């Protein structure tokens, strides 16, 4: 039944739209309403059955079907619908969505753009249904000019079918890499922007976070052809690869979030708020780093190799602290006092 609601909503806009414009082709109408020309024909079919109460022929809305019957470039004309000259007021949900979008835009814009955005906000409030107050919204967007520049460059690479060279930081390995990629698509998931691309270095399809790109450069080479299905992010970003090793970790109460955040195969309560989780790891360095960052709240139980990797790494790091030249004395005090901004 929502089909009818959607159609009526469109019709209530279509009637004033057609009356407020001169000659508009069927193709243009369909594009403006983001539906197919056939759908517009169906909509006009409904309109043709509507009119003033009583619905005698002189009261019906008139539609010129002949002009558009076989010709998508034919002009769409209606008559006898003067009482529907204006669209419906913008509803509270619609206005709220648009107002929040404008605020986000304002947040992400240079100050010079504030004035025009503020004018829009005022006018939208006028357009909204009477008695609606937009919900309160507080936005703290990740401001990253570099990411925006990278996004623009990558969009251009996709539009002009070119390869791109990325300087990319891989936190798991604390490595800066330079790689050439065939950019496929820009995606957003969980508040981060990603590039989906075929990576020549890895010889595989990879996702790259825009905020980890240090530089993006367009290459004058056409992208290589890959027969790839569009990526579906609805299930999240993680895809277990073939080389994954199953690891078992124990999580102390305040590292329980790890089991929510990373895809885990199984979770088991250990009592006292502790969890055992099995997860798939494709790079042992990732797990070692995670366990160190959250130390000592994550214990690696299996496999034994990763367990000893972790122990060895921790010992190497601790050895840097256990000699005589620990500079706890005056050096520390002066550095603290002179705190660098």
């Amino acid at each position: 039944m929502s089909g009818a609601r959607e159609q009526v909503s469109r019709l209530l806009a279509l009637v004033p739209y057609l009356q407020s414009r001169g000659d508009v082709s069927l193709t243009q109408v369909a594009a403006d309403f983001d539906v197919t020309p056939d759908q517009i024909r169906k909509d006009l079919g409904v309109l043709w059955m509507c009119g003033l109460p009583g619905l005698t022929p002189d009261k019906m809305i008139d539609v010129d079907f002949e002009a558009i019957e076989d010709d998508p470039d034919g002009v769409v004309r209606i008559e006898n619908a003067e009482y529907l000259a204006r669209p419906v007021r913008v509803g509270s949900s619609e206005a709220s969505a648009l107002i929040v979008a404008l605020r986000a835009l304002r947040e992400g814009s240079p100050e010079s753009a504030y004035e025009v955005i503020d004018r829009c906000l005022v006018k939208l409030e006028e357009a909204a249904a009477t008695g609606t107050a937009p919900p309160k919204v507080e936005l703290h967007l990740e401001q990253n000019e570099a990411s925006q520049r990278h996004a623009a460059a990558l969009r251009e690479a996709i539009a002009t079918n070119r390869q791109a060279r990325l300087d990319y930081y891989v936190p798991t390995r604390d490595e800066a890499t330079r790689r050439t990629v065939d950019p496929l698509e820009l995606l957003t998931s969980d508040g981060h922007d990603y590039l989906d691309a075929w990576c020549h270095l890895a010889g595989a399809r990879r996702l790259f976070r825009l905020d980890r790109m240090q530089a993006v450069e367009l290459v004058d080479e056409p992208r290589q052809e890959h027969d790839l299905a569009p990526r579906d992010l609805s299930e999240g970003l993680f895809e277990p690869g073939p080389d994954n090793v199953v690891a078992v970790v124990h999580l102390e109460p305040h590292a329980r979030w790890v089991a929510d955040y990373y895809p885990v195969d199984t979770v088991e309560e250990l009592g006292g708020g502790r969890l055992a989780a099995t997860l798939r790891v494709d790079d042992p360095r990732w797990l070692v780093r995670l366990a160190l960052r959250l130390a000592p709240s994550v214990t690696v139980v299996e496999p034994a190799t990763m367990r000893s990797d972790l122990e060895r790494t921790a010992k190497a790091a601790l050895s840097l602290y256990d000699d005589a030249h620990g500079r706890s004395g005056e050096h520390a005090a002066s550095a603290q006092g002179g705190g660098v901004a």
Partner: protein
Amino acid sequence: MVTAKSERLLNLVILLLVARNYTTKEQIRSLMEPYRASSDEAFDRMFERDKDDLRALGIPLEVGFVDKFFEDEQGYRIKRDAFELPAIDFSADEVAVLGLAARVWRHAGLAAATSDALMKLKAAGLSFDREQLDHVQPTLAPQDPAFEPLWQATVHRTPVQFDYSRAGQRDLTTRHIQPWGVITTQGRWYVAGLDTDRGEPRMFRLSRVVSDVVATGEPGSYSVPEGTDLRALSQSLTPREADRSAVVLARAGAAIGLRRRADITTTGVTGPDGTPGWDQLAVPYVSQTDFAGELLGYADAVVVESPAELRNAVSSRLARVIQGAAT
């Protein structure tokens, strides 16, 4: 089916919009063929559903008495000034901004709401030039299933309940709130409102809402207290300015993530392991616990020189890892 229903709804809108006065249900029935052709019972059901549909479409359907002096006959009308979009002039630069705003939401429901709004503005004569819109811009991409129902509850002021799991705790609690607004920071979404069980404002992270969001009252059944300041409420969520600084040695070419926000104060330092080629960095930080965690992630590529407290935090956590691995 859809076509017949669309016709009926549109004809009903026109009828109520052009009528000078309230029209009774019986008059409506006599004027509209699909209602006339239905049994009494079927008509009642159909008319109720149609009224719901019109309201869902944002059409202001008013109920009143046909005769002011005799309050016995109820009727319906759509007042033109409440129905019609008022004439608003948007200048070219404002239109461009609206076009950009329409692409901010990466969420099916909210994106549809913005494009519906734009469709109405197009119907009022505005033209949005697609070419102008190719511009880098912020995006809002809430992905938590609880976002849409809580957003709707916030817009329509509907009290709700949901099961909530607090960070690091296993037990779920059922919370009752009057949502006031939504907050987003760094890709995470929160709803703020009055927790009616506790009688105090609270914030909830949407990813921790683990049940359906259920309405517990009528839309519009509360109002947001005057002067509610979401910014103040959300202060605890925004990252504090880094106000402390640590001196850290990092191996040349390593700890790249750390270097992005550090000042290199000296290069070519000899490290505690006796090897040359370390860099001395001054790194601002906020929370000692978080910063120690970050440094731990770089393993033996970094060593803290000062402050002593941070140095001890890192080394004692390393010692506990080794202990844990040995047991």
